């Protein structure tokens, strides 16, 4: 960790080494996870109607698919990450994704789901499963740009928006759990945009290839999370601009929508 307490005084390399480090991750997550077993500080359950409970379970099943995709992908990406800093950062992301999956499964059990795996199998959105399959194909092919783009830009940006919105309307236990996840997602999507941004400056020809991937994949995730908001009973007029953060990120990277 650097000697200065003023982050804006750091040089670029020192900043990147700092924020990609396990030391930074450990001190950061202590701030918002310490004393919160399974992401919640022992809050009392609120009454949910059966319709609300079922909608929440279906939503959590889809969140589990997204988090499992990110867990499998980020762990695989360590093997072909371009430098040590990226490897170390991805190791912290693996830990985050594993924790997300664990707290989501725990929440499902609190909601009375006896066999979460069976529920996920039954309720998972087919588009999201298709997205996961394609993401893992990029990882199997050791395609760094496509993997970072699909996982850290498309998936993480959309999860960040949906979780943030859901945290604002959910029951207190689910809301606290989601807030902890959102704090992690900031790092994951920021890593993706910045890594890809630097890479596109050095290899502009990558742009067309990633644009094709964008066209193929982003609608799968946008449609899934739009359906998620429906399951949560959010009226069409009250739904957030789901793709707003994501479209802003890809616009900064030079992609047209």
């Amino acid at each position, binding site marked *: 960790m650097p000697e200065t307490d003023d982050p804006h005084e750091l040089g670029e390399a020192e900043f990147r080494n700092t924020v990609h480090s396990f030391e930074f991750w450990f001190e950061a997550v202590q701030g918002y996870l310490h004393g919160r077993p399974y992401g919640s500080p022992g809050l009392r359950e609120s009454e949910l109607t059966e319709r609300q409970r079922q909608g929440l379970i279906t939503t959590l099943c889809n969140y589990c698919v997204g988090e499992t995709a990110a867990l499998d992908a980020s762990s695989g990406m360590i093997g072909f990450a371009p430098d040590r800093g990226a490897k170390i950062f991805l190791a912290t992301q693996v830990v985050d994704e594993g924790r997300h999956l664990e707290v989501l499964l725990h929440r499902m059990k609190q909601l009375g789901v006896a066999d979460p795996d069976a529920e996920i199998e039954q309720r998972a959105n087919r588009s999201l499963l298709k997205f996961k399959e394609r993401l893992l194909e990029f990882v199997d092919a050791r395609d760094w740009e496509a993997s970072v783009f699909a996982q850290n830009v498309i998936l993480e940006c959309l999860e960040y928006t949906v979780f943030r919105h859901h945290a604002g309307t959910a029951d207190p236990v689910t809301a606290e759990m989601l807030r902890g996840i959102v704090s992690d997602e*900031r790092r994951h999507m920021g890593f993706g*945009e*910045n890594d890809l941004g630097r890479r596109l400056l050095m290899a502009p020809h990558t742009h067309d290839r990633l644009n094709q991937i964008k066209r193929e994949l982003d609608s799968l995730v946008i449609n899934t999370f739009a359906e998620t908001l429906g399951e949560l009973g959010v009226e069409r007029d009250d739904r957030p601009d789901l793709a707003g953060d994501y479209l802003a990120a890809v616009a900064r990277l030079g992609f047209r929508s």
Partner: protein
Amino acid sequence: MTDPLELPASARRPRQTFELEETGFNEVPKRFRRFYRRWRGAGDKLGPNEALCPVCKVVIRSTKELRAGDRVYCMPCMSRLELVEEEGMLIAKVIY
């Protein structure tokens, strides 16, 4: 050398400095926390030493007044930003 009288008024006067206090922001290591705060929504206003991160919507704070051309870091999302003036407003843009 630029004639100081040709510079905009904001650039001619010395920069204001600020004592930063804890804001309750807890997503970075303790010693960096006072340099960030949460955006409080539509009614919130940025101070002269603050900029909004376009990537993760956290407010970045500095010990000095920010001006166009300054570079700051958003630690929560790992972004490097430059302040630019657009239509009279100071905007943070990501530099990769």
